[in-house]
């Protein structure tokens, strides 16, 4: 990893074109606006020009979630989190604050950990979305999930999906992270039960498991 100061200046993390939590928060307003204004991203061009798009008026959106395509009618104001949980039944993604502060809703968008609560469903069109369920290999747990079981990296388990997705995102960018990188990577995922020591151990174990597979 490069210098931490670089991240804070730009809001970008060294790993490709990723975001730190702070940078992500600062840029999300822009992202949301851009998505509403960019009708080219919406499948239903008939739905109209940017000026006519209202928050409540449903539009058709095509989402690629866990390698499956879903065509859905959504209101442009609906968050990806709400659509995943209440419409697609993918409740592995949890809701903790709906403000990008707790990380319970972390999913991967094009391999990068993102808060599904701060991502509009329309904004996610054309992106590759991976949720906790998408890490499963059939009935088998993925390596990060397996490591979380072995190291008891959970208590109530509610923040756990977000922690797992943050670790998965980290390992996709940095297959052999240092403990400091792990702690940084999950620092946007609050765990009120306080299982952090086990989470850090699980992330290291997951890196080993992934290397072996």
């Amino acid at each position, binding site marked *: 990893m490069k210098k931490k100061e670089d991240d804070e200046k730009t809001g970008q993390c060294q790993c490709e074109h990723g975001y730190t939590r702070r940078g992500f928060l600062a840029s999300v307003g822009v992202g949301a606006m851009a998505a509403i204004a960019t009708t080219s991203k919406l499948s239903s061009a008939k739905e109209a020009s940017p000026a006519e798009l209202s928050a409540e008026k449903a539009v058709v959106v095509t989402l690629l979630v866990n390698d499956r395509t879903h065509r859905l009618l959504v209101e442009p104001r609906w968050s990806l989190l709400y659509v995943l949980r209440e419409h697609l039944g993918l409740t592995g993604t949890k809701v903790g604050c709906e403000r990008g502060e707790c990380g319970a809703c972390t999913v991967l968008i094009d391999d990068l950990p993102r808060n599904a609560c701060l991502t509009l469903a329309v904004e996610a069109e054309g992106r590759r979305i991976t949720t906790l369920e998408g890490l499963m290999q059939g009935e088998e747990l993925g390596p990060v999930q397996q490591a979380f079981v072995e190291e*008891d990296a959970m*208590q109530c388990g509610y923040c756990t999906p977000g922690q797992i997705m943050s670790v998965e995102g980290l390992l996709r960018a940095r297959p052999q992270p240092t*403990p400091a990188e792990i702690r940084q990577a999950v620092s946007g995922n609050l765990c009120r039960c306080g299982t952090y020591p086990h989470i850090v151990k699980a992330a290291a174990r997951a890196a080993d498991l992934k290397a072996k597979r």
Partner: protein
Amino acid sequence: MKDDERDLYFVEGIAVPQTPLPGEEPAAWGKTTVIGQRQPRVDAYERVSGTAVYPSDVVLPNMLYGALLRCPHAHARVKKVDISAAERMEGVHAILTGASLAGKVKWPYSEEVVTDLFDAQCRFEGEAVAAVAATTPYVARDALRAIAVEYEVLPFVADERESLAPGAAQIHAGGNRFKAETYERGDVNKGFAEADVVLEEKYRTACEIQSPMELHGCVANWEGDSLTIWESTQGVYAVQAKTADILGLPLSKVRVIGHYMGGGFGAKLQPGKYTICAALLARKIGRPVKIFLSREEAMLAAGNRPPANMTIKAGVKKDGTLTALQFSGLGSGGAYPAGGTSLLDWLVRDLYVCPNVQSELTDVAINAGPARPFRAPGHPQCAWALEQMMDALAEAIGMDPVDLRLKNVPLVSQGREGSPPYTTTGLSACITEGAEAFGWREARRRTAAARKEKNHLKRGVGMGSCVWFVGGGRPPSTVIVKLFADGSVNLNMGASDIGTGTKTVMSMVLAEELGVRPETIQIEHADTGSTQYATPSGGSKTVPTESPAVRSAAIAVKQQLLKMAAGELGSPLENLRYTGEYIEATDSGKKVKITDLASLKKQGVVVGIGYRGPNPEGKVVNPFAAQFCEVEVNTRTGEVRILRFLGAHESGRVMDRLTFDNQVFGGITMGIGLGMTEKRILDANSTGKMVNRNLHDYKLPTALDVPEEMVSLPVDMPDSEANNTGAKGLGEPVTIPTAAAIANAIYDAVGVRVRQSPADPLTMNRLLAEQSPEERS
């Protein structure tokens, strides 16, 4: 499961305890083979795969989404609620207001104080004013915004220290004083006269919010006159009882389900107004309704740890004998009686040997959300004061803090009438073994030597110890264990697993007793419709309450199997040995595989019922702990970094070493929150409103705030007098001494006493700036 294991659920070759004769208490376990091992959670797969359905995950066909309109003022009277615009909105299906309920639905804030569900008098910001149900949560929130409420804004008081001042806003007709308690033993004045050193100091801990990651809420659905509620709760039977009572329903018609839940820490022991609103809305519309609070609502209205203002005066002789402790505490559980000073003086009364103790507690009203129990009510606050005072006394008489505590370890519970003895106490062992493993004495020498160095990074070590008021568990609890013809086992238990590993520990108890593998056990739990009665999972009581009942049920199963085998092997009961997979006759040498027992095959299942027996009479069952930490204080920035932590905990028998350690780390992490990062801030001067009502401004500890080095040192002391598994509770003691230990370490590092929590950089900078030049090094 591998093919060759399919018919074999038993672990081969393990010693299984003998079944006692009927009516006899089972003997304590000797050497255990499953209990005490590192067993991963039996429901871990569900939790990491996304297949565990938490109440907030429940989506029912035709379901609507509810939301509560909340008072934006600290204190106000609702004059008029206009729902005409909201009612006309597309997608809005029902609206409930104070007027529409016509005072028919009551909400008991306490036994004495009962208000309307939507009461005209809103005594805190976030009080419920109306509820809506709509097609989506977005429309529901639109509807809330469309409801026009006319408020008469009233004077407020938001600081408990101002609550009893002349001219303070009156929250209740009877005044702002809820409760005043006093306690006295011996004669403190005599004690202070005998002391060589007397110190007096004021301390304060800020109000904390429980903040479980899963928000408070439920899904309610009616089938005819039967109500089913999926609630994120620590106790399904407690939710059932209060909901049935408020709605005037028979208990049998209210089913509460809470298989998984995302944390509670005391804030989910009871239903909320949202539960009642969801049920009322669902009944009105005839469709299921889901209500989950927002984080902001939870922070305002779903519980907190009351702020505590404490004065402590202590006398000690030069040899470390405590002669007197005098304590006064002022707290507030918010706008309604909610235990604002609950157990606030307990450590002063009970933790150390002291013949002369006096305390007084005053619980007052402020215009803020009602408190709910928060992990070890009163204790971490009292530890903040008492444990810092112990260190100050130790310094004053030139004694090591560890030695001063060891000098005053009690064997009886002095705080209780008649000073009954503890069944066991590991307090000395926790302090001694903890100090040894931490390298306490060497560390103290090192930090003392380093203090003279010119360096802006100062290191210090600190410790704290504790007892937890309860933690022994108690009746009632009933569980049912079924052993099927193929040898697999089902446990039916009403208790919730709130993340502490209850299900895993119970599986281990069954495995230990019946010789089956933990992962072959299926557990049904936390459902008033289909599982047995249990009290809520709180008070560190679930393992010591449920595990003895589970063991008894397993023994009941074994006794029936032995009876079957006696007939089939033709040997008397006393000559039979249960070995897990087989039952052997010691006289004839014959043995029968349990799954081959003809009676079992015919009967299909053997059912064992276990009841939780009483606790030993005249004795007290409490867990104990001592924690140690090392910190580094940056005297230029005021930042405190915790370098390492060690928790030495005696909670009777260690049941699952893996979940035990996890709990210890979790409790320490939460204690770091109290000590370093967390405080509810109310705008006491101009609005009374909470200003940090989100997880950005209200700081929970993150992975970067906990030390890399955390050590859990179990002091394994099976308590055979307490119950038949020898277990005591762990969930609460783990967070009691943490913040105090940090404060003591900060003092050791820089000579600054942090009297008010949290020790955040702002506070530290102020305290460091106040230091005189000679104190600074």
